[in-house]
């Protein structure tokens, strides 16, 4: 890593938008999406059984519970859509997107959060409301939480970039957010 690399944010030691940083997050999101899709297929009776190595009929009880099906689409399907949105927003843009496309980085950060919050809520609900555990639901929750920390460094770099733009008298934060201002092209520092 070259310290003069313009893709490394000022005061940082690495580029949080590099592919080495982002591809693992996208891979995690795709694994989570695959698990959630499988659970949704069970909920919509496309597959008849659900894999459950530890907790007997726990997965079946959890996945067909009233909480799982209270929304117009099942929680598994909702999770699958969220994971796909996470993976997509992790992959859009090049390795300088923290300053060239802050909007996608901010969307990425905003999408990652609620998935984790909902996952933790569902993990709490499993034993308390239904006295059961669901192995793949737990695996999905772990993935959604593990993604949050590694995703946030890029969000921080984008917010610092926007704040730098806000502090310079002649630049527009609005244009910087959408990546259409002059500072998106050269180093703003």
């Amino acid at each position, binding site marked *: 890593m070259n310290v003069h690399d313009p893709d490394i*944010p*000022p*005061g*940082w*030691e*690495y580029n*949080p938008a590099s592919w080495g940083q982002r591809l693992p997050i996208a891979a995690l999101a795709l694994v989570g999406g695959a698990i959630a899709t499988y659970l949704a297929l069970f909920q919509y009776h496309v597959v008849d059984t659900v894999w459950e190595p530890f907790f007997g009929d726990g997965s079946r009880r959890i996945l067909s519970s009233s909480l799982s099906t209270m929304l117009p689409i099942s929680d598994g399907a909702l999770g699958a859509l969220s994971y796909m949105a996470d993976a997509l927003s992790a992959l859009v843009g090049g390795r300088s997107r923290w300053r060239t496309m802050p909007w996608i980085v901010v969307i990425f950060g905003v999408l990652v959060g609620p998935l*984790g919050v909902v996952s*933790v809520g569902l*993990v*709490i609900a499993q*034993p*308390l409301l239904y006295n059961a555990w669901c192995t793949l639901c737990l695996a999905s*929750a*772990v993935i959604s*939480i*593990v993604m*949050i*920390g*590694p995703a*946030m*460094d890029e969000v*921080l*770099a984008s*917010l*610092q970039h926007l*704040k*730098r733009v806000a*502090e310079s008298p002649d630049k527009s934060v609005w244009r910087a957010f959408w990546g259409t201002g002059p500072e998106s092209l050269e180093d703003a*520092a």
Partner: protein
Amino acid sequence: MWTQALNVALGGWLMAAPAVLHYSGAARTTHLILGPIVAAFAAIAVAECTRGVRRANIPLGAWLLVAPLFSGFEPRAAVTSAIVGATVIAGALLGGRTRTRFGGGWAVLWRRRMADSE
């Protein structure tokens, strides 16, 4: 990082403990609610950039520590709660080493001028 990994494990243990040690009631409910939350905050705090999230576990650890005093925990549940609570607080306070800097981190976003910090 290891202090946060420890708190992840402790949160996971709280989720299993009611079944493993056979206790129920308020202790079980408390541990099944706080376990996943403690584990989630600690897991987010493993990443250096979001290490500050570890502090969210200080009040949760304190709750685990004192909860046996206010509601009828069975002895083994009370001991579990107190030990886990005290250890979670320690892990949340210690934080562990961070090796890299992030342009001043999240704090500069609230500062009047971030240029001063660089």
